[in-house]
């Protein structure tokens, strides 16, 4: 499924008990959450981080992958994700790089596809993780809206 070849490397982001796997190409870098500037928050944008030659909005997700309106202190890492249009940061507890080889990937069953869910599939290995993409997470976080709003006010 999902075009992930067995040579692809995945990055596993932990949001509390929930673990989300992204193709490694979707993750531009892993930064320390402490490096983000949370002085000015406009939920769902909780702050900004300077990385990769720019300043990018920072978001956080709860265990149900819904946007949080405040910064969870346990999120120590800021994963800088790249979708087609922009970069954005997502706070997570932990990040692991793991080879795709040996993991089974399945599409999310039809009966479980809620409107607007960022979950695209299920990864089964030593444990179970949700498969998503930077694009799907950007939609949930309304990243485009934040970028457009920022451009309008600039």
């Amino acid at each position: 499924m999902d075009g992930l070849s067995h040579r692809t490397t995945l990055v596993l982001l932990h949001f509390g008990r929930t673990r989300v796997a992204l193709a490694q190409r979707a993750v531009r870098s892993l930064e320390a959450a402490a490096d983000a500037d949370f002085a000015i928050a406009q939920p769902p944008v909780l702050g900004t981080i300077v990385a990769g030659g720019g300043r990018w909005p920072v978001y956080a997700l709860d265990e149900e992958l819904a946007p949080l309106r405040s910064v969870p202190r346990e999120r120590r890492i800021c994963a800088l994700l790249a979708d087609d249009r922009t970069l954005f940061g997502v706070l997570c507890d932990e990040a692991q790089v793991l080879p795709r080889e040996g993991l089974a990937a399945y599409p999310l069953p039809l009966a479980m596809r809620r409107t607007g869910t960022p979950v695209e599939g299920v990864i089964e290995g030593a444990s179970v993780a949700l498969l998503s993409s930077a694009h799907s997470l950007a939609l949930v976080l309304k990243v485009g809206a934040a970028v457009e709003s920022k451009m309008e006010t600039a």
Partner: protein
Amino acid sequence: MSQAGAWLLTLGDHRAAVGVREQVHLMLDPGAAELASTPAHCRHVIFWNDRCVPVMDLAHWLDPSTAAVDAGPHRHLGVYAYQLGADMPVEFGALWLSRPPQRVEVDDAAATQLPDARWRSIATACFADAIGTVPILDLSRIFSGALAG
């Protein structure tokens, strides 16, 4: 009059039935994985025969005020086969069961009306026995995503 075999399912406080050939596997002590960002009535999957099979909590869908299944012990699940269309491949879905299914014979003369609109959206027909009405589940609709929201 003709008779057909069916499996009588106990879904929390509700009863329903499926055709005898639709039930393909029964797990008495299943290990199911809970997935985030999924509907409250379909939170779990099992990995079975190299497939990721959704597990539906129809009792919770029928009455959302009831507690959802937590995949703890003392729950069973049945795996059911269905097709979304005549030429479509066979797919599989699972249902949480409060007790193991019971094999019954259903007579055509026992046919009756479905209890209410909610049942009408997930059942194709209904029969009556000594205890009450037993809707016959429309598995392809239940697992098609029509209930996902």
